[in-house]
Every structure is written in C-alpha cells, then in structure tokens.
C-alpha cells in the first residue's frame, strides 16, 4: 500500500493527492495531525491513517472507508453522508455531528457533544462519551457501549439510542424502550462487521417520548 508522509504537506495538496490516488488503490497517510479537514468530501476509496489525525477528519465523507490507528481531534466525520470512519483511539469534542448516513466507529472514548443532530448514520462509541451526546437526534442509531455524561440524548426526536453503561442524566424527551428483535439483528451486523464484541440484547434503549416536544 502506498504511504504518503504528510509532514510538510498542506491540506490542499494532500487532499488533492488523495482524490487522485484513491481512485485506484488504498492509500495510507502518516504525520497528518497538523491537518484539519483531511479526506473531506471523498466519495470512494480506502484511506488509512497511521498515527493520529487532526480536526474535521473525513468531513462531508460521502462514501470512502477511512480508518485511523490513533486518536483524532475534534469534529470527526462532520456532516458525513456515507462511507465508514473507524477510529482505534479516542475522538475529541463534537465527533460525528450532523451525519446523514454511513457508519462511524470509535473504539476508544469520545468527548462532549458527540453525535449532535444525527440524521441517519450509525454511530458506535465502544468507550465512554462526555456530556450532551446525541442532542436533537432525528434518525439513525447511536450506540454507546460505555457510560455517558449529562443530558444524554437531549431532545431526541426519532431514531434509537443504545447505552451499555450508565448516563449521568437523561436528556429531555427521552423514554426507555425494550431492545427489539430488529435492533438486535441490525446492531449485531454492525458489531460483527467491525469486530466489536458486545451483545446488543444487553444494551438499554432510549427513544423519543414525543415527536413534537417543542411546539404542539
């Protein structure tokens, strides 16, 4: 696999190179912590990051499969619409916000405001998340295998939120529901695809208490 050293590169040149080379074959990059917005708007291809990555990794990702060996900065996979983004380490503030589709897997922990306004993606955090995770979610699946902080799944509108551990406090408009057979099948497929050893049936599920919690 071709490895590109990003040490002296700027965003424009490295992203430009990625768009050309990812057509043919998988690409690996290293020394890219200083770049913010790496791999933005890719539509296909396999990109792996050796070491860590900066902020906005895979922003507007529309179909590429991106994996990261280490930690990532803030705003991972911002407004992603397709593809996959797998982080072996931890993610910073605001991971997987505004996503419409695709799958985000964070094997470590994630910070505050994870998965804000999820509109259809599948987002899995194997570790813990901070406060305000899953705010104003409109569609999709959010799975936290560890613990969550305050105001978890605040103003959930639609979609399903699953948690393995405990949350410090539950957000507005949430209510518990039993995990369904469909959920188990669906989550099992995601866990298997990404080598996550967890049992969907053991998770606690939250759904929206009302579809119209703001104005009636």
């Amino acid at each position, binding site marked *: 696999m071709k490895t590109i050293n990003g040490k002296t590169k700027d*965003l*424009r040149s490295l*992203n430009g190179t990625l768009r050309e080379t990812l057509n043919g074959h998988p690409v690996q990059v290293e020394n890219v912590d200083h770049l*913010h*917005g790496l791999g*933005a*708007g890719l*539509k296909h291809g396999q990109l792996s990051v050796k070491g860590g990555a900066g*902020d*906005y990794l895979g*922003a*507007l990702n*529309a179909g590429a499969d991106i994996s990261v060996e280490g930690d990532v900065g*803030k*705003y991972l996979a*911002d*407004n992603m*619409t397709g593809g996959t983004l797998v982080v072996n380490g931890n993610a910073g*503030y*605001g991971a997987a*916000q*505004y996503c*419409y589709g695709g799958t985000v897997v964070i094997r470590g922990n994630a910070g505050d*405001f994870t998965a*804000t*306004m999820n*509109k*259809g993606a599948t987002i899995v955090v194997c570790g813990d998340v901070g406060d305000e995770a899953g*705010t*104003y979610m*409109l*569609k999709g699946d959010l799975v936290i295998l560890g613990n969550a902080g305050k105001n978890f799944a605040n103003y959930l*509108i*639609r979609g399903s939120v699953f948690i393995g551990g405990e949350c410090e406090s539950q957000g507005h408009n949430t209510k518990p529901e039993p995990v369904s057979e469909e959920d188990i099948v669906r989550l099992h497929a995601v866990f298997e695809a990404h080598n996550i050893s967890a049992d969907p049936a053991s998770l606690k599920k939250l759904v929206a208490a009302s*579809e*119209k919690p*703001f*104005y009636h």
Partner: protein
Amino acid sequence: MAVIGAFCVSVNKEICVNARMSGKCATCAEVCPHGVYSLDPDSGHMEVVNYNACVGCRICAEFCPTNAIRINPAEPEYISRYPWTLAAVEEVHYKAQTGEYLLRGFGTHGQTPNFDMITVVPSQIASQAPRDKYREECDMEVVIGEDTCEKPMRLKVPFVWAAMSFGALSKEAKMALAIGAAMTGIATNTGEGGVLPEEIYLSRGYTDPEMTRKRFDPGGNLIIQWSTGRWGVSVDYVNSGDAVEVKIGQGAKPGMGGHLLGAKVTDDVALVRGIPKGSDALSPCRYYDVQDMGDMKNMVAFLRDVTNYQYPILFKLGPSRPYADVAACIEAGADAISIDGLVGGTGCSPDIVTQGVGIPTIACIPPAVQALKDYGVHHKVKLIALGGIRNGLDAFKAMAMGADAVGFGSAAEVAMGCRVCYACQKGNCPYGITSHKPELRARLDPVDAGQRLANFIHACAEEIKILTMLSGHSRTVDLSTEDLRAMDLNTAALTGLKLAGYERQLPMWEALQNGNK
C-alpha cells in the same frame, strides 16, 4: 381620563338586536364603564349618547351577542392608549389563555430607524457634473471572489435574493426566485432548507436538469447556504451552486436558528431536509462544530477544499455587533459578507425576537464598512446589506453608505404577490408563497412570478442608475457617504452621515473617524 373624541363608535343596526327589537338587548349599555351607550327606559331604544367618553377598551364589542359594534381609533392608539394599546392587551390575553408566547412570520412592524430620513445629494455646479441616465452608461456589476477562487460570482446588477428556505417558502416560490435571478443575472440563495433540484438548473436559466435548453437569459447564480441545521447538506449539495454562504445569523431572529414548524414539514420538505415528516425543524442557534476562530478558519478551509477552490465563500450575519462580527468574518476568510438588519423577515419566529432584537439596518452598515476599511478590504471583500430594503432608493442609500450590493427578501415576496399579513408560519398563504397546501400553491405560477421578480429588479436597477448618475457617478463602486445627507439628528447620530444644513458629521463621528486615521 378619557381622551375626547379619540374613538369612533359604530353600531351596525342591521344586526343589532336592540335596533330590530327594542328593549330586547341592552348589553352594551350594561357593560360600558363610561356611559357611552344609554337605554331609553320608555322606548327601549339603545343609543350612543356619549361617544366622547369612549376609551377604546372594546368591552362592548366583546360582549355584543351579534358582533355589531365596531370601535375604530379616531387618532392613532399609540397616542391615546399607549402603552396599553389593543395589541398589548390582546397579547396578554393570549398568554393568559394559552401559556405560550406569540410566533409569527415576516419582519418587524412599527417605526424603527430607517432609510427615510436620509436624502440623496444631487450633483450641481460645485461638484462633478451629473451623468445622463438616458444617454450614458452606468456600471453596476458586482464581482465576488475575484482574487480568491477559480470562478468568481458576477452579479449583473447589485442585488441578490435573500436566503429563504424551501419549507418556509413553497416549491413554486423557490422556483420563481430562481427564474427571477436567471432573468436578471443576479443570485438566488437556497436558504437553509436544502436545495431543490429545480433551483439548480432554473437559476442558471435552463428548463432541464441536464442544462441543455436555456430559456431564461442571461442566467443567474445559485448561492448554497451552509447553516446551523445542515438540512440536506452533503458534499454534492455544497458543490451544486456558484458560491457557498456560511450562515451565522439573520435579521429576524438573531441569536436563534431557523424555525419551521411541523405543520409545514410536508413529505417534500422532509425529503429535501432529510428529517421526519411533521417534526419541527428548529435549527440550532450556533455551529456545534465550531468553538472558536481557529475552528471557523478550518471550516472555511475544508469548504474551499471540497468545492475544489472553485467558488467564493460568503458569510451571512445577523445584526449584533457589526464591527466585531464583520472583522471576525474577514479573518475567517470571507469573500463577501451579508449583514441582515433588524427589519429583516422570516417564515416563523417568536414575535418578541422579530420585534425586539437586533440593530436597524442603517446602523449596521457604517460599523461594518469601518471594519472593512480598517482591514484594507472595503470593496474587495464585498458587503451586502439586507433588512427592509424596499426599492432602488433604499438600495442606493445602503450602497452610498458603503455596501456593494443589497438583498431583497420581504420585497421579493411582495413582488410575488404577498400583502404582508404577518402569518407566514401558519402555512395558509393565499398567494401560495409560504404555503404547502396544493390548492394554494396552484395559485403561484413560477414563470409568471419569476417575471414579476425580474420586473421588480429591472425597475430597481433603473432607480439605482438614476440616482447614481444624478449624483455625478457612472459606476456604483464610486458612491460614497458624500452622496447622502441625514435629515434629522437621530439619523445623523446613528449613521455618521453629514447632517443637512450643518453640512458636517456630528462632532462625535468626526472625532471617531479622525481617531481611526
């Protein structure tokens, strides 16, 4: 006590019970606390005996069983009943009944500082001679992003349509705006509701998605808005226009995000926005993915990156602290900055926010221009002024104050037929502009409305031409504050324009601008 002659009391005798059957009803006489009405004990007739005593409380009208009474102010209620005008009273009643605050559409109503007390200075003998509007040319083209991107955006005349979302507006209204932009060479804006496929090709003048059949010359521009809700946003969305606008705020509800109530989130709207049908689309008030200036710069960088450095990046601001806000946008890398003043409208907002929050447009422009000048980028980073611009006269004044172009939002809706009922949020617009009901949408023909919009732009462009040329210029870029005078102290104080008669700026403005040199 009661103001003499302040109200006209009329009773419709055709439906008044007492008029048809004397003695059968004396409700008005019984409830009126001031003796406006009187019941004759012998004949049983009820008469208005003392209209001078009427204080406009309208208790009689409320209690009248046949709704026969009409109370109209003989002089504005603002004078006779302020602060307890009917509007203030009804608002408290509404809250007492429902426990809710008022939500409504459109912009600020009532007098706020505006362009009317500014006058245009014509050229004469002591200055550069006027130009001849009928026989000479006037250059009013505006180019955005000339030095920063591959495809700068050109506006043939210095106007844009303000950002109005699909959801707030009907599909037909969005299509009309696109056609209007195509017919005049200006720009339309997706607003934050996602992009309609029709907008993409209509705004460029084509009638087919493949863009092979051009019908609307010369073709216009499409500005793609990137907002706090990210409705319908993807890499393709961002690349489907001629520019990307980062929305920070708007005039009608600065500090809050867009409001689209569930009733207007139909199947179509839900599809374009990517949200469940019938759910309230309440955009967040801020970017959850930007915490500081560094993040904002990185966001602009990846937006330029995913659009392959082709398009200009615009910023849209609501009216807050114009100098500092514009400075921040310049630092973030904007190619153009729109600033939307207090009076700017919306499809839905809490009434108190539309009425009470923000800075009047005339007071936003001078600090914004000062920031651009201080950074050395005035007229390079373009300034677009919005918020209650009604015609070419308002537009000229904004441009002479330093804006490069203006936006029409409310005026565009009125051009399409709107009569300003302030109820856009209900979705019952009888002109099909802000409604999604099929029977109402059927009343708005996009091509006809597009023509009306183009007509309006042509007329306003001619007005700009008249004013630019009579003040001695052949290019709108040469306009300056010297072409305007304030006609009262308030306006001179708010805008820093020279005061008519005094022929100088007010001293504190002179000191401020000298201090800046």
